[in-house]
């Protein structure tokens, strides 16, 4: 079975709010892991949320573009109701 490749890591310096740092230290202590692990998990979760938020906004924006600027009859056609001028089609 192929082994999962460990994510590449880089050292950096961050300035964090004291209360957040304190909370993260408490979590690390209670779970007996180091502070970097807790901060990494929190950052990954935050990035997933941000990505989901971006995706949702993009969907809503695309929906607006897809249905904007059409008349009522044109919107009916987009909904699958094909309207023709009365007497124009085979009845």
């Amino acid at each position, binding site marked *: 079975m192929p082994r999962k490749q460990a994510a590449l890591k880089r050292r950096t310096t961050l300035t964090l709010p004291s209360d957040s740092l304190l909370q993260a230290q408490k979590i690390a202590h209670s779970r007996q892991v180091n502070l970097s692990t807790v901060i990494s998990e929190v950052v990954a979760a935050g990035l997933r949320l941000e990505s989901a938020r971006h995706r949702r906004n993009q969907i809503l924006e*695309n929906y607006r*573009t*897809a249905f904007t*600027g059409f008349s009522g009859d044109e919107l009916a*056609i987009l*909904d699958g*109701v*094909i309207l023709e*001028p009365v007497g124009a089609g085979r009845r």
Partner: protein
Amino acid sequence: MVDPAAGPFLFDTSAEGWLARNASADVVRWLYAYLGLHQFSVSAVTVTERIRGYGMLWRRSDPGARGRIEVARIAYLSQLGNVLPVDSAVAVVAGEIIALIPEAPTPPRRSHRLAESRQERLARWRFDGLIAATALVAGIPLVHNNASDFEAIRSAIERSPERFPGLGPLELIRCSLLA
């Protein structure tokens, strides 16, 4: 209000259109919350109806207006989430539905100077049968904006459970009740 967490749902063509163009803050909030929990699911039939609609508008439009329609079509295709296929199970169930109710339960639509032909109404009714079958086979509620047609399908399935073994009931949610 329907809890977005109660999903996933399948959205009928007109329900998708209703949600996408509804500017009510409550509806937009509901859709935003729903998209945070589930992919937006539609039937492949909805994609067919929608793309056919863009195609017809494009052909009917002046060349100068066609760019706008193409932008709208591409925006629609860019946001497609989970498209449920018409597979053999869906085809069989849709065939049973259409056999039970061969004619559309409501008349063709009309507007001021335009009307839907009988052939188009029948085609749309059969598309609705395929969409209802998709929800039934997937075992998820169908959100719709067309109570008369889908309630007729739901009732027919309830009256003839032997034609739908192991399936049903068809759960329906009217889109105006979502938010």
